[in-house]
Structures are given as C-alpha cells and as structure tokens.
C-alpha cells in the first residue's frame, strides 16, 4: 500500500448521533469490514463518546477511523472515515448533517426535539449519505427535501405553548441575524 488515497466514492464509513450518556440515538455504518456486529459498534460508540464528550476538539482518530464531531446541549454528531481520509470532506458532511438537523428542528438542536422528529431526521440522514457515498452536502437542499410536511401545515399538532415558543425562537433568530 503506497499511502495514496483510494479514488472512490465510498468516503463515509459511518454516521452516528449519540445522546449525552453516549447512547445511540441513530447510527449507520456503511462498511461491514470495520465492525463485525452491533456489539462492536456499540463498544466503539461508548469509547468514542468517552474520548470526545469533554473536549470539544472536532476531530479524533480512533480504532483506525478518523472521526469528526460536533455537539450541542445533549446531542453529539459524528461522521467517520478511514484513518487517512481527507478530514475536510468529512467535516463538510458533518456540517451538512448538523445544519440540516438544526433547520429541521428549527434551531432547537436538543435530544427531545430530535426524538419528536425522528422520522424526518432519519430521512435527512438517508439524503446525506447513501451506502457510504456522500449524496448531498448542502444542508438547505437536504432540509428542503425532507421537511415538507412542516411547510404544508406548520402548526397542525403543536400546543399553544409550543407555537409561542417557536414564534419566540424565530423572532430571536431574526433579531440575531
């Protein structure tokens, strides 16, 4: 092996979203040669969480994988590639994941909100990566592709407090911009 990178579309080895105890909320691994089963995957996730939950340092090498990560409140987002993968490509996928999730959850990137919209988050992950190939890296495109229902009838099953809450959020964000 010469150390040159393989010219391949299969760049992503895994994507994971963990909660603040290191438990898996959603995770997908695209290369069966890396982990032999769910048990190994979980062990890796625990280990990964251990090493990353304290320092927000964005990148780590673990178990022959390069992992880029980002966290907010009680959520941890990870994108993994081979140990010599171009980290900047991985980061672009990670930011797409994070920004798309953030758009779907209307900037409320928290575990509770994520679980309430789990269906849309699953669709978003599917739009971002297909079997290890980055499918789309523009968060706007991704969130548009999955978040249709909310555009159609934004308030159909929200309580009054939730509506007020999101209105306040949006107001706040528009002021910040």
């Amino acid at each position, binding site marked *: 092996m010469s150390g040159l990178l393989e010219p391949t579309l299969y760049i992503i080895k895994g994507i994971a979203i963990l909660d603040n105890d290191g438990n*898996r909320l959603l995770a997908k691994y695209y290369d069966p040669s890396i982990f032999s089963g769910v048990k190994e995957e979980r062990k890796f996730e625990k280990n990964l969480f251990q090493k990353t939950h304290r320092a927000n*340092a964005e*990148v780590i090498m673990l178990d022959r994988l390069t992992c880029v990560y980002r966290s907010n409140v009680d959520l941890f987002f990870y994108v993994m590639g081979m140990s010599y993968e171009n980290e900047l490509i*991985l*980061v672009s996928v990670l930011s797409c994941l994070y920004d798309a999730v953030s758009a779907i959850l209307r900037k409320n990137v928290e575990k509770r909100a994520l*679980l309430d919209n789990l269906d849309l988050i699953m669709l978003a992950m599917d739009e971002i990566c297909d079997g290890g190939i980055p499918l789309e*890296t523009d968060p706007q495109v991704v969130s548009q592709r999955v978040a249709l*229902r909310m555009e159609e009838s934004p308030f159909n099953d929200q309580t009054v407090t939730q509506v007020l809450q999101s209105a306040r959020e949006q107001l706040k964000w528009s002021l910040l911009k």
Partner: protein
Amino acid sequence: MIGSFKQIKKDEEDGGGNPYHSTDKTSVLQEARVFNETPVNVKRSTHVLTKILYLLNQGETLATKEATDAFFAMTKLFQSNDLVLRRLVYLGIKELCNIAEDTIIVTSSLTKDMTGREDQYRAPSIRALCRITDASMMQAIDRYMKQAIVDRAPGVSSAALVSCRHILKESPEVVKRWVSEVQEALSSDCVMVQFHALGVLHQLRKSDKLAVTKLVSKLTSSSLRSPYAICLLIRIVARLIEEDEIGYDSRLSDFLESMLRHKAEMVTYEAANAIVTLKRSSARDLPPAISVLQLFLSSPKPTLRFAAVRTLSKVAMTHPNAVTACNLDLENLIQDVNRSIATLAITTLLKTGSEGSVDRLMKSISSFLNDISDEFKIVVVEALRSLALKYPRKQAVLMGQLADMLRSEGGLPYKEAIASTIITIIEDNPEAKEKGLDHLCEFIEDCEHTTLAVRIIHLLGREGPRTRQPSRYIRFVYNRVILENAAVRAAAVSVLAKFGAQCEGLLPNILVLLQRCMMDTEDEVRDRATYYHAILATRDSTLIHRYILNPPQFALPSLERALVQYLQSPAVEPFETRMEERVVPTHEKYAEQLSAIPQFAHLGPLFKSSTPVELTEAETEYMVRCIKHTFQNHIVLQFDCTNTLNDQLLESVSVVVDGEGWVVQTSLPCASLPYSQPGSCYILLPIPEDIMSTTGTLSATLKFTVRDCDPATGEPDTDEGYEDDYTLEDVEITVADHVQRAARSNFAAGWEELGATNELEDTFALSAMSTLEEAVTQITQFLGMHPCDRSDRIPEGKSSHTLYLAGTYRGGHEVLVRAKLALADGVTMQLTVRSDDPEVSEVIASAVG
C-alpha cells in the same frame, strides 16, 4: 399506587426522556397491523414505521418471517400519498430487503414512483428500487435509468448515479450500457452530480489504463466545478503518476501543483497530501505543498490543523528537512486544546528537531500523555524509538520516560509498543541494558498481560545471565512463579533453568527453587521443573548445553514424517533426531512430492531443498528452473519446464547433465509438455564418496521431441515429431546444498561444547566486497547457514564485526562458524570452523577459498 409511581420515575431515569426507550420488538410488530387500515391512518402509521426503523437502527434483528410480514404490511402504505410516510416506506424497503423474502413485489410501485411527476418521490424511489433489483431485472428499467441519469433535477440524477455505483459491484456489464449518459452527467452544473458521475466513470474504466489517461487529460484541462469531483480527480491523477514507471507526464504533476492554489481548502489539502505522499516526489517538489500545509497549521479550524499536522508528521519520516521550515508553527501547536493535534505536533518535532530540544519536548509530552487515546500514545512511543536510535546519548532520558509510560494506564498494544521499544534500545546499546532490564523487571511485577509478561521473562532468561550481577534478576523471576498464572509460571521456570545453566555460582540455589516448583498445581509447570531439575542436577555440561541452552528445535511436520518412516522401517537402532533439527520447514511440500515418486522412495528423508535457480533467460522459447534436493547419499535435480511456444507440443522432455565425478543413476523424463502448462523432469545423482569432491559444475541440455500443433486448439498437426535440444545454463552444486540452516539460541555455549578438536582456521581477503553488510550477506548465503545472536545486524559506523553461523551438514553433523570481519580496503576475514567431524570442517573452510 406508590409502586407504579416508582416505576414511572425509573423509566424516566433509564430512558432519559426517550419516548422510544421502552419500545420492544413484539409489540411494535403487533402495532404494524395499523398499516392494513383503509383509508391509511397516516399519523399512526408514520409513528409505528418510525418505531420499526428505530428498532432496526438500534441493532434489533428480525427473523425472516417477521421481516417478511412487516414488509408486506408496509406495501399497503403505498395507497397513501403523504410525502413523509411514502419516503419512510422507501427507507423501510431498504432496511428490510436483505432479510425479507419476495421483496420484488414492490418493483411496480417503485417504478411508478420513479417515472412519475413528483420529484420528491423520484430520487429516493430510484435508490430503493436499485437496492431490491438484481441484474436480470435491470433490463426492464434500463430505459428509465438512462433518463434518470441525465435528468434535469440534480437529486434524481445523483440518486441514479449513486445507484449505478452500487450496482457496479455486482453487475458491471449492466452499467456499461449507460456510459454515454454518465459521461453527459459529468458536465452537469451541480457539484454532487459531477462528483458522482466521475466516480462511476472511473470505476467503469479503472482496468483500462489508456481510458483513464484519456479521461484524466480531458478533465485536467477543462475545469471541474465540484470540489468533491476535483478531490477524486486528484486521487486518480496521483495513482497514475505512481503507477507510471517510465512515461511520466509532467502535465499531471503540473495539475497537482496548480490545485494547491484552488479556492476550496478541501482541494488544496487533497493536492498537498497527494504531492507529499507520492513516492516519486523529490525534496524539490515538496516545498509548495509544505507551505500550503504550514498555512493550515495556524488555521482557527481544528480539523484543518489536524489534517495538516498529521500529513506533516508523515512527511517528517521520509523528508525531515523539508518540514523544518514549519518547526515554529509546530511549537505553537504543542499547547493545542485538541490533544491529538498536540501529540502529532510533538512527534513531528521529535523527528525534525535537534538533539538539544529533546529534553524540553519530553517534558511537554508527559504533561498530557494521560489525556490522549492509545493510538496516539503508540505514535509517541514510535517517535521515541526512532529518536533513541538517532541520539544514543539521550537514551537515559528516553528510557526514564518510557518507564514512566510503562507504569501508567494503557491497553496491551500500547504496553507492547513500549516494551519492544525498550528491548530495541537494549539490543542497540549494551550500556543501556541493565537499566532497561531493571525497568522491565519492575513492570512485570504488576503486569496484567500474560503474553507480554512471558515475552519479558524470556528476554530476562536470554540477557540476564550475561549481566554483571545475574542473581538480582532471580528474585523477580521467582516472584512470578509464586504469584502468576500457569503460562507465566511455566515461562519463569524455564528461565530459572537458564540462569542455573549459565551461572555456576547460582546453581545450588536454582536447584532449590526448581524443587519447590515441582509442587505446582499445573502439569506443564511441574513437568518443566522436574525436567530441568533432573538435567541441572547431573551437572553434565554436554547435557545442559544440549537440552537447556540450545534445545533441539524441530519443524514439527518433518519430525512427524521421520517418526512415521522410522516406525515403518525394520530398524532396531534407537530413533535419531539430529537429522530433523531444522528451522526451515519449507521443503515439506517437496518432501511429499518426491516421496510419491516410486524411484525416489528408497532415498530416505529429504535433507534440504534449494531455492529455484533459473537455467534460462527470461522470455525465451522454453523456461527451465532447477531445484536441488539433497538426501543422505543422493541429490535429485528437479527441472520445472514451461513451453512458451503455442504452436509446439513437446514430448519426452528430459535434461541431460554432465560433470566430472557425477554419474546419472536415473533420469525421469516428462512425457508431454503442452503450451504454457509447466511440467517437471528429474535426475537422480549419487553423491561421490569423497567428501572433497561433493561440489561441482554440471553442464545441462534440454532434450525433447517437437510436434507442431495448431495454436488455437493445441492439437498436434502431425503424428511424427522431430528431435531437438536446447542448451541450458550450468547447474552448480555448492557447499550450501549440503548444509541446512540451524538455529542456536546460545551460540557461545554451543561453540564451547563442540570444542577445538576439529577446529580449522584461515584468513581470507575478500577484495570484491566494499562493505561489511555485503560480506555478511554473501558469506551467509554462500555457506547456507543461519546467523546467530543477531550477528547478521551490523551497528552503524563500525569497521569490524563478528558473524556467528550455525548449520547442520548432510549426515547430521553440527557445524559452527565464526567469521571475524574487518573493513580495510576490501574486507578481511578470519574464518574459524568447528564441527563434530574433521572432514566437514575442512569442506566448509576450503569452500570459502
């Protein structure tokens, strides 16, 4: 009431507010019945389907029946037109298609979605469809795929291309039909489409180098818009440059260099990484790439710093000088919040820095070593190892650091890396030996890894007895016998015996210790203790040498074969093992082949097989290689022949050899040798009685009958052939053919044991050799013996060296050779040979002259 309240509270704590936490498989699959309602209950169905997908994602496995049922229930949901629900169904199809049966049933629904008007359906339905369709069904959707690849909506086009790439793994011929569409997609405006199209196109043409070259030269001159596609192109170009041996196109490296100035960081990094990784990059090509990486070092983005420093640390291994320019920036990174970056910065500095900076760097390493992952700790250890070899004077500092690291927390690979680094230092520098052994002794006092403990104890047995004060190690070793598990105890017992064998003064004490070990609960430990005690108690130095210091090392398959042969023979004398003391079991294969030939069955056990020697030039009409098999009194020459002419069939192929003193006893021709199918013929030669004439040169000629044949079918045209011959290069029978390599774990002990009775000594001037390394390799090869005590490795910068070789001469005679080499205008060698047979000593000594 209170009980249920507690229950709820507990759930809350366990689940951490996760509504999916308590979902279990059986109940969810029950709930899936809701899919059958008409009209579809969108809200509930979405919820249940999400639960199923969540469970699958958590690693829950479904049985085939369960999956199939869920799958079929899910197909009912195609009746609803809710966008989210429909797309969850696609996800469900993809997740379940590998477990469920008869998934092909949804093909028509998916095809309808894929060709429909709703863009939101088209893209994901293509991806789902391609997942469940096999090559035979592809025909049906061929036309739709072609349209989808060039679709105006980028999402649809990307989905089709990505699916193409997946299909390529199974059935490339299907995708080959769509190549012109893929080519069209390559000029798309959308970044992702361009990337996907290039990936598919390259995969299609990968095996055709000319096509790849064409593709590359087209793309490097046009400008791709997508940074992802450019990264991919850079990798393709780098591959091309690396593989191209001669016709190296400078336009390719110009392209790489121009990409260093691209506006996307992703691309500049990819280009810089490619340039520094390319083997053909010389020190002159590196600076532009290095300065790009240097710029990244001070970036506010951690990933960018990480990528840059990781790449630089790689460069530092091969071109440390090129990286020196970045030293200042690297120093700044030592304090980086990301420990991985800091570690890589330090290890890079260790490789590029000067001797003076070592102490300072070591101090900063120890400050954060506990915060980084084992992977990085190993990187640090590797850096320390190379540093120790580079600056011997700093070994004391480094050794201290390593000992500290050995005491701290860490997994087996990490501890192993440290231990082997210490061992390397010990071997490299005799002065560091005792210090290093002390650290290791201390470590095994509290070592949880059995393999590592055994390895270190073994090392103590090898090095300990030769130190100034062997007695101090005994305590450490015997502590293991008291405290450890069986494997370590057994190793410790063997090591105690080694101390006893080599240190006269300690022998009485060792015997007491061994006696105590005989009470052990483990069979293996008891057996070893009893065995060693019995041998040591005799105080017979020959026995001790033979069974403790240089124990026989058998190749087990050979030993087994010899025992079987012995049992079948009517012999009454005891079984002789010495013939089987071998380190190379590679001739096992040959032994089997030869014993299957009846003419060679009486020859006895195979002693040695040489490596194949080519008797023809490469790419001639006939190719012949010779392998020499040595037996007790015979040599069998095996000729592997290949006929490279497709219009000839060779018959009765044999080799005729001729040489003084050598008489052919049997010749076994090869009956037929068709084009390109290798065949073998054999010659059996008795070895001359006179031991001094057992080497020589034989001229060889290939003789055969030619029959012309049809190149296409290989059928001969004529019934009658004509005779022909072909001159081969000479076959040399050398001393090495009579000598088998033998391992001696303790050369000095073996040397003393053989004694000076049959010693011969001579001095030679090897004027043709200019370095000691060359001399060592040549002598070792020439005599066919095994270098002992690592004497084949020469410390750098030395002008004299002693090489120790051990071997077994045909007939089971032990031979040891000591060659003292000195470098002065060529190499001067004083050769001393000891053996248990005076004639053998003479043969070996005279062979060199």
